[in-house]
């Protein structure tokens, strides 16, 4: 067979194979065009999962007749004015989207510029270009794609159910909308409107939070910490969720580079590193991060769909993300997410909302079937007295400064009022079931899980001791040689200094192997080969010694677990208050080592709602 040049249409169809993978990619290309055109409002309509129609309408700068005719040609774009791939400021730049779409579907573009006296329209039908003709349209551009993939039946067969395709497209729109809070978005599938976002107001961070709130749910907005950090002309902004707000997968983690949604392993690794201490390994936080950097520091031209990027200095970016996240989490101190108290409220609220009788009946003395379960008042009082006993004793002995707090002594409680407001976690009132501490704050109550809270305090103290005193190292009698392959061995030996600080001393041993001379004494007799192999994998994948840090942290947390007070231990008033004060003073004390909350706060308003007073 002799070699021949492919026809233009063939080339476009092949390009379409990369760019137009499914209806969602059409939506992505068109919406990016609209954003690049400076639109303030973008409306997307879809029918039958995009198989019948995808229409994107914007109020951007529009095109005149000449531009329109060129726009549908391959490698024609207005976005690379200087032929400079180093400084890409727009989302698109390849000049492939419209011709690719036109080669596999029936494409109609209608557009009018601000200065033009009429709109123009052009149609491409499976690669056949029509003529530019006048049309009626307000300022902006409308792109209609009908019968997607009719020209490539093979691809048509790979289309999933309409709902699936629609959800993918909606996902794409949400991601783009997050990065552009100033633009109004709407998305409908013909029958109903799936996304309706008004342009967000206010400064960048608050506008962004409004938009994230609208997309990721109110829960996120209530529990988000703002991030704003800058290092060497790279700016990181965005919002991250508190660790106690977490999910089973990483679907709600978003990274945007110069307004472009990207998926990057670097983000996963950095997020894991930053949240390592607060979440169990199978839980993932919610967050949206926006990186703004000069275009020359990042290469977006690595993939036709542009979902991956390359950073010139990935270490710097990673370092920026990890330190900014850690800093924000440390500042959050003992804050636990409001979801926790909302969950608690949800659990407390009477089940049947149907009628008042349903909730009142069981409370009536001797009321029907519930009568038998109602404890006689005397035993209740006894039980209460037992729980309060330690406090009373403390009060009597006078050592519990103004303690006051015992309910039987209302007068001193008034003196104590300013102290109540001083402490975010309030003053301990009682211990219930020898497990939970109930404290009164200025405007609510706090319930603390004593074991989880103390475990965290012990763990934080151990970590502090470890960073201050250094990790002790056991020298090996027989140094262990670990085969890693050349790349792995190099990665490990490059980080030898950092690893030594973590207690692991390695040195190069020929090509492709390292020799381990000393290991962290904390780990005792350990599987050195496995440890170093995992470490090399971590370094390759996330560019950090996560494995070793995690292992050390694991040992610390086991020791912390055994070294902390357990549930079932009776605490007196002073002990409880001391625990609360320590929690306030210790960073990250709002969650235990596994991301569960250590305390729940109920505001007075919440409690009033429980009783139907609000």
């Amino acid at each position: 067979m002799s070699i021949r040049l492919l026809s233009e249409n063939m080339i476009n169809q092949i390009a379409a194979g990369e760019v137009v993978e499914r209806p969602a990619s059409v939506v992505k290309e068109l919406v990016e065009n609209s954003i690049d055109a400076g639109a303030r409002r973008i409306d997307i309509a879809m029918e039958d999962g995009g198989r019948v129609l995808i229409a994107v309408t914007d109020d951007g700068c529009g095109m005149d007749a000449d531009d329109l005719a060129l726009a549908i040609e391959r490698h024609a774009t207005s976005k690379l004015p200087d032929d400079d791939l180093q400084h890409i400021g727009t989302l698109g730049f390849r000049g492939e989207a419209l011709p690719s779409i036109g080669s596999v579907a029936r494409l109609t573009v209608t557009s009018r510029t601000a200065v033009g006296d009429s709109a123009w329209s052009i149609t491409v039908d499976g690669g056949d270009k029509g003529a530019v003709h006048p049309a009626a349209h307000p300022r902006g551009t409308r792109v209609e794609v009908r019968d997607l993939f009719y020209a490539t039946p093979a691809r048509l067969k790979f289309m999933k159910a309409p709902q699936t395709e629609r959800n993918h497209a909606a996902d794409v729109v949400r991601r783009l909308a997050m990065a552009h809070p100033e633009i109004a978005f709407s998305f409908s599938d013909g029958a109903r409107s799936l996304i309706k976002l008004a342009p967000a107001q206010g400064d960048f961070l608050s506008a962004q939070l409004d938009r994230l709130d609208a997309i990721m749910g109110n829960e996120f907005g209530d529990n988000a910490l703002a991030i704003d950090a800058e290092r060497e002309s790279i700016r990181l902004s965005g919002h991250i969720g508190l660790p106690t707000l977490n999910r089973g997968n990483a679907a709600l983690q978003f990274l945007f580079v110069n307004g472009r949604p990207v998926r990057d392993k670097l983000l996963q690794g950095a997020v894991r590193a930053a949240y390592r201490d607060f979440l169990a390994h199978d839980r993932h936080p919610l967050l949206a991060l926006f990186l703004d950097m000069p275009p020359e520091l990042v290469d977006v031209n690595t993939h036709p769909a542009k979902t991956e990027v390359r950073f010139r200095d990935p270490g710097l970016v990673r370092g920026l993300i990890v330190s900014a996240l850690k800093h924000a989490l440390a500042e959050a101190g003992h804050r636990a997410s409001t979801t926790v108290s909302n969950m608690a409220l949800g659990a407390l609220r009477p089940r049947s909302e149907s009628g008042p009788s349903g909730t009142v009946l069981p409370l009536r003395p001797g009321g029907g079937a519930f009568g038998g379960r109602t404890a006689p008042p005397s035993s209740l009082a006894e039980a209460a007295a037992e729980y309060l006993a330690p406090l009373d004793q403390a009060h009597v002995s006078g050592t519990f400064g103004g303690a006051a707090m015992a309910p039987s002594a209302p007068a001193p409680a008034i003196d104590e009022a300013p102290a109540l407001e001083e402490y975010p976690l309030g003053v301990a009132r009682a211990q219930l079931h020898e497990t939970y501490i109930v404290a009164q704050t200025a405007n609510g109550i706090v319930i603390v899980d004593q074991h989880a809270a103390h475990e965290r305090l012990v763990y934080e103290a151990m970590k502090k001791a470890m960073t201050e005193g250094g990790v002790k190292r056991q020298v090996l009698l027989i140094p262990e040689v670990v085969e890693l392959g050349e790349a792995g061995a190099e990665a490990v030996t490059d980080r030898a200094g950092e690893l030594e600080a973590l207690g692991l001393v390695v040195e190069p041993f020929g090509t492709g192997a390292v020799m381990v001379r000393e290991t962290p004494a904390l780990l005792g007799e350990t599987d050195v080969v496995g440890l170093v192999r995992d470490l090399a994998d971590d370094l390759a994948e996330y560019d950090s010694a996560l494995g070793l840090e995690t292992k050390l942290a694991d040992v610390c947390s086991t020791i912390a677990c055994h070294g902390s007070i357990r549930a079932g231990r009776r605490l007196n008033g002073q002990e409880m208050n001391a625990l609360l004060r320590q929690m306030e003073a210790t960073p990250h004390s709002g969650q235990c080592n596994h991301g569960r909350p250590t305390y729940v706060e109920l505001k007075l308003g919440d409690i009033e709602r429980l009783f139907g007073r609000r």
Partner: protein
Amino acid sequence: MKITIDRGLLLKALTHVQSVVERRNTIPILSNVRFDAPNGQLSLNATDMDIDIVETVEADVASAGSTTVPAHTMFDIVRKLPEGAQIELDASGDDGHLTLTSGRSRFSLTCLPPEDFPVMASGELPHSFSVAAEDLRSMVDRTRFAISTEETRYYLNGIYLHESERDGVAVLRAVATDGHRLASVELPLPEGASGMPGVIVPRKTVLELRKLIDEIDGDVSVALSDTKIRFTFDGAVVTSKLIDGTFPDYDRVIPTGNDKSMEVGCKVFAEAVDRVSAISSEKSRAVKLNISKGNLVLSANSPENDSATEEVPVEYDAGDMEIGFNSRYLLDITQQIHGDSARFSMADAASPTLVQDTGDTSALYVLMPMRV
């Protein structure tokens, strides 16, 4: 099979054999002990497929035969029967049960067919010699603490028993190490051991053997090939597989040029280490040794900044030095030294330290320092 046996004899044999039987098994018959009653004897056989133990006791055999019954249940029953009781075992019925009768107690246990019981083929054991039980005990005692439990380095999960020589005298040497410390103990080479291959005896075998020879006087005869080892003593035969691996060239890590030598009273030293280490709350209880002429200062710190020091008089002439150790490792070693004083030979704070009983050169210990 129908026999009558004294409870004391049966209990002793069962105590020995049941301990190799694993609590949980995927192959049901491995939970069982096999009884064989030829003439005038009962032999009990248990195995975990790596170690096989056979013990033979006197019994009054009414009819010969063999069967297998759950080992732990059997042991439990016999243990709870009164002292001095006579036990009758009867498996002659064809309902697959063994009936145990003693006094007014009666138990019926489900049997599994004895022909299904795995037999460990020992093959030929070309090398054999005998060792005094007392010597074997002391050899095991002084090395077993250093056996590694880390399974990825399986070749360290046992004691390396081999022929060697020192100062021109042939010796039988046992070595164990976990990569942090090493213990080496030797005996004059017994007759017949010359030419034996170096073998690694697994940890479980070592511990079982140690229990079995606890009260034995006289000799233990040892027979081995390069895959199996057999110990025979006092009516019991223990056969074990060996670890198929190469023990590292330990000779190279035993320092020979350590010129800083410290002699210290063993008991005084161990007690001081134990006291000082009480302060360090961490897992890796580190102690620091500051040695100067004639004086040793032991010290330890906790992350909370508590500290402890204790001075111990020593014989030391070299330059001042500071070295850190895991206190548990130090105590493990000093426990094995029964003489009055121990000699520490050191080079520097990062090199192996040699520890020996000043009055007994048959054992030596190597300990790696800790960086504190």
